[in-house]
């Protein structure tokens, strides 16, 4: 039997396996006498120990045992009273929702201002470039709320002004 199987068998007896794994181990155990013998020994130990924790009594009288505990408790410096954290705790509690609210407000203001721009009379202000996922295509969008129009231009990337030519080293990297 492999060590992993032994541990799995033990986990099965301890009820630590998932239902599926437990079924698998039970099937395997039913066919393997070696596994059955080991399982019987593990069960026997478990049963022998259950509820048979060695019992012991404190070898000192009640008063003597307690007197030492009491002495330590009384000699310990009193716990430092914490400065009243009431307002701090309350502030922390509201910190996350307040910051979220502030973020939403900032975004709302930004969007409102942007909407104001898009609603402006200057149509060129509506021109904006959006991210293109292809290196061969460039795209531009135009939106006008007043006209209720949304236009997207898609153009080949080679119409875009040429970039500085790649160095020899960069070409090598591209080839690789």
């Amino acid at each position, binding site marked *: 039997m492999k060590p992993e199987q032994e541990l799995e068998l033990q986990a099965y007896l301890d009820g630590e396996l998932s239902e599926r794994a437990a079924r698998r181990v039970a099937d395997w155990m039913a066919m393997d006498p070696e596994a059955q013998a080991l399982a019987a020994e593990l069960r026997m130990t478990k049963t022998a*120990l259950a509820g048979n924790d060695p*019992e012991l009594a404190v070898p000192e009288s009640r008063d003597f045992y307690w007197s030492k*505990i009491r002495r330590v408790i009384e000699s310990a410096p009193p716990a430092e009273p914490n400065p009243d954290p009431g307002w701090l705790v309350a502030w922390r509690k509201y910190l996350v929702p307040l910051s979220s609210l502030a973020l939403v407000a900032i975004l709302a203001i930004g969007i409102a201002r942007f909407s104001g721009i898009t609603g402006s009379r200057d149509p060129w202000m509506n021109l904006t470039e959006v991210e293109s996922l292809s290196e061969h295509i460039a795209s531009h969008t135009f939106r006008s709320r007043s006209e209720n129009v949304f236009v997207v231009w898609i153009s080949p990337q080679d119409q875009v002004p040429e970039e500085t030519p790649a160095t020899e080293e960069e070409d090598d990297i591209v080839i690789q």
Partner: protein
Amino acid sequence: MALQQNKSALNDEKLVRSAQRGDMDAFEELVARHRDKIYARAFSMMRSEDEALDVSQEAWVKGWQRLKQFQGESSFVTWMTRIVINLCLDQLRKQKRQKAESIEQLAEDAGGVERQMPVVTTNPTEGLERRELRARIDRALNQLSYEHRTVLILHEFEELEYKEIAKRMQCSIGTVMSRLFYARRRMANLLASFKRDELSP
């Protein structure tokens, strides 16, 4: 005396509530009621009367200091047992750092020792009186390394799951499983050897 009699009539829950309000007499009654169990747990792990006394008393001091944190999710004695177990583990870790490990310990940790032990097929505890059985278990526990003893105590006596034991012993679940396997196999073989000794002339 009258005060003690008065307190002894109260259940743990009421005593804990009084102690949480600062009533030290109520706490003293709790100590008197559960001191044997807490001491026994400390002794089963430390295997030394003096150390068990010290650790169990330290546990009561900690229990008093943290009493306000006790919310009653478990029984008071279970809560106290967890405190004493943690203190024992801290203490044993400190001791282990100071001691060189035995050859047997190194072999156990390396694994495979349990595979050389024969499977015990006859129940060596059958027919034993409870007192005798407890004495033999105690004797066998004494012969285990602290890691194997502790894992056995936490699993069999405290009924903790592998995950919880791993957390307390600061090791992986796999380590808990292999230590527990070794400890059980060794325990079975020790109990069998005690039986053989008893039968031999």
